[in-house]
């Protein structure tokens, strides 16, 4: 094992070590687990940075730990490949994780399950790192599920709350539905390619018939839908906000949910051979972006609003990768990770200050009380709204530009529309929380969070402010794109956001959309020059639709969950107990009834015995004569 391999394996090792230590010996570590855990992750982050530069100035490389499964012709190794795509992800994941860890020390300070929390969190980081570094589909699948599991335990971290444990379970199961497709996709790859290694699969995929490629791509995408909470499997993500807020920031905004985008970027070869599958990705992305934004506009729970926003932004990313603009998708992924992480953490900070209050109707005017939080929040909000020069502007604009460029005007329009709605709902949130009159409970002592929480916020805010410049237009020549595009160069319909249209015109449209969104929010919530209630009444149906999240949960409950339960009860009560068991018991019953009849032959009367005997003789003789 050379030093490169060692570094590569040390990156996941530290979080794993942390997970085991806090998990098994948490009692003894108690308070140290937070600091030590953060240090472990920071070490991983440093190592990731080292690897980043090694790859940036060298080559991608593969490193194998041991042979995992070797069942006749099915062979899978535990091995990693580090290339440009993965190092970006690595640095991003470990970086944000470090900040979230540090933040969590403050946020979770008084929680009983402090060590347990860090154990879970470290485990998650480990799984996420491995997911990114895996060099074959099975390993990817393994850690795909593993992050899902971590998400499950973290969402249900406060398991005493029924809603939390429900949400965790829901997340896991919905993810499993996606994974079901993913698993089938992996199997389909294996049975057709005979291998699961990325390099072999990607180099040989074009030999398969197109319909198979499309099937594989769609099945993989099913996994992505589940993990990245795209329509129609998006229902778990809003509920996942039951978990601790740093978890939401890390898992449900920055890292895990973007794994779907990562997957498609990783499998861009497969998708590039299947235009129809790519189209499906695009459409799903568009739908999700739109409906999530639509729902977010009327919600009152600040975390949920941000969660829907995450959905919506993920929709953007999928639109990007759907049209083959992988670089743009990844760029948005990273910048989104930063500002959305920031938004969640600030929301957490608000909660922290408000003793866990989440309803924005009970807030207002907090700006004066928690300045650091408010400013960082607004930075995040601006980034989300795509206001230059914040990072969101550059990344979102790259996507919109490539949509326009590709000729998908319909989706471009949706994109712009969503940009407007995004700006509206996030500033609706900001105005309601930080400005305007206060609806805060008088007894509540609102306070700014401790430094251990605000420092990560500030760091993130800085990044959110300046990160975009590495992907500045003209896109192809920016640092980020020239770095990443080397990995995507061999994909078929590679469509970097080329500027054969003046980019600043398009950007202007987006900026206008963003600003008008902010203005609308301002009009509604600060100036109050429009009567909200009247609007609500006029568009009652639309409002109800948005408010009730398009009734999707209800539809699922009605169309899937309940029929399944009823069917299960039917199977148990009717098929199992009545038919099958009944048949068995029925036979026993029949035998016993027959037995009680047969016994009567032996009635104790000698006469009838003689008679029986005689009848026997007659029967035997009769057989001879009748024969």
């Amino acid at each position, binding site marked *: 094992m050379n030093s490169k391999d060692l570094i590569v394996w040390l990156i996941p090792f530290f979080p794993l070590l942390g997970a085991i230590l806090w998990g098994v010996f948490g009692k003894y570590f108690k308070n140290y687990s937070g600091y030590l855990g953060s240090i472990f992750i920071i070490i991983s982050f440093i190592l990731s940075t080292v690897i980043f530069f090694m790859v940036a100035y060298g080559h991608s490389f593969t490193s194998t730990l041991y042979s995992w499964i070797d069942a006749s012709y099915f062979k899978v190794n535990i091995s990693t490949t580090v290339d440009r795509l993965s190092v970006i992800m690595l640095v991003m994941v470990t970086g944000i994780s470090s900040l979230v860890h540090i933040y969590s020390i403050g946020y979770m300070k008084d929680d009983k399950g402090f060590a347990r929390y860090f154990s879970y969190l470290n485990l998650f980081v480990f799984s996420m790192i491995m997911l990114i570094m895996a060099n074959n589909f099975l390993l990817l699948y393994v850690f795909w599920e593993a992050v899902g599991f971590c998400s499950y335990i973290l969402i249900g971290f406060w398991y005493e709350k029924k809603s939390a444990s429900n949400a965790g379970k829901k997340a896991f199961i919905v993810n499993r539905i996606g994974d079901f497709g993913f698993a089938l996709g992996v199997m389909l790859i294996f049975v057709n390619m005979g291998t699961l290694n990325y390099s072999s699969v990607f180099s040989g995929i074009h030999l398969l018939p197109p319909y198979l490629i499309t099937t594989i791509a769609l099945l993989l995408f099913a996994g992505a839908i589940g993990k990245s909470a795209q329509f129609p499997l998006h229902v778990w993500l809003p509920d996942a906000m039951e978990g601790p807020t740093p978890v939401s920031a890390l898992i449900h905004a920055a890292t895990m949910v973007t794994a779907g985008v990562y997957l498609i970027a990783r499998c861009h070869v497969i998708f590039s051979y299947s235009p129809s599958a790519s189209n499906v990705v695009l459409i799903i992305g568009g739908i999700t972006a739109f409906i999530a934004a639509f729902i977010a506009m009327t919600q009152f729970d600040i975390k949920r609003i941000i969660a829907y926003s995450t959905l919506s932004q993920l929709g953007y990313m999928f639109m990007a990768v759907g049209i083959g603009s992988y670089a743009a998708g990844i760029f948005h992924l990273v910048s989104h990770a930063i500002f959305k992480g920031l938004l969640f953490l600030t929301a957490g900070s608000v909660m922290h200050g408000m003793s866990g209050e989440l309803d924005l109707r009970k807030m207002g005017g907090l700006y004066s009380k928690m300045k650091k939080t408010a400013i960082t929040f607004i930075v995040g909000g601006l980034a989300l709204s795509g206001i230059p020069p914040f990072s969101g502007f550059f990344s979102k604009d790259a996507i919109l530009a490539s949509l326009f460029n590709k000729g998908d005007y319909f989706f471009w329009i949706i994109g712009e529309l969503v940009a407007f709605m995004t700006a509206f709902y996030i500033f609706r949130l900001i105005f309601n929380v930080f400005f305007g009159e206060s609806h805060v409970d008088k007894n509540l002592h609102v306070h700014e969070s401790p430094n251990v929480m605000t420092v990560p916020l500030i760091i993130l805010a800085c990044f959110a402010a300046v990160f975009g410049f590495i992907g500045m237009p003209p896109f192809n020549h920016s640092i980020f794109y020239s770095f990443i595009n080397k990995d995507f160069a061999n994909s078929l319909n590679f469509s970097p956001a080329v500027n054969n249209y003046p980019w600043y015109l398009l950007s202007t449209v987006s900026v206008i959309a963003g600003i008008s969104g902010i203005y609308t929010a301002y009009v509604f919530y600060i100036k109050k020059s429009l009567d909200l209630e009247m609007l609500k009444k006029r568009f009652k149906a639309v409002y109800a639709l948005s408010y009730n999240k398009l009734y999707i949960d209800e539809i699922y409950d009605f169309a899937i969950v309940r029929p399944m339960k009823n069917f299960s009860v039917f199977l148990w009560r009717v098929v199992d107990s009545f038919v099958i068991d009944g048949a068995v018991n029925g036979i026993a019953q029949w035998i016993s009834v027959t037995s009680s009849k047969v016994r009567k032959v032996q009635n104790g009367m000698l006469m009838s015995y003689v*008679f029986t005997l005689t009848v026997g003789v*007659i029967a035997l003789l009769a057989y001879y004569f009748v024969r």
Partner: protein
Amino acid sequence: MEALFYIFSIIAIFSALMVISVKNPLTSALYIILCFFALAGFYILLNMQFLAAMQILVYAGAIAVIIVLAIMLLNLAKTKGAIKDFHQLVIGIIAVGLLFLEVILYIDAAGEKKPTGIYTNAIINKVGNTQIIGEFLFTKYVFPFEVASILLLVAVIGAYIFAKK
């Protein structure tokens, strides 16, 4: 000869029917002695005088007397209602009728004497059937004979055990 055969047949069958139909067991016992006599007649017809004598001695003399003794001993002569109810009778007659038909139907071919053995009437009469039977009993059938003797002994023990209070 033929006439005797028919006479004996009629007596035997009639007395047999009486045995099973009269109410009083004592009467039954008397009828069965009559039947035994008829059978003894058959044996004489069949040139087996020794057996005929045995029939009278053993059956009519010993067995029937034992039965009569039993009836007297138990004071059973008064026992009434010997035949079971009508259904039983009908069922029994049907069953036995079937049995009878099944056996009898195929004893139909008119046969004639087709001897396979050496003990013709002439020889038997020459040696005397008692002597021949005696010789057989103590030579070829000596073992069954011994067994039969033990059997009788056992029967005696049995009767003793049962009858003992």
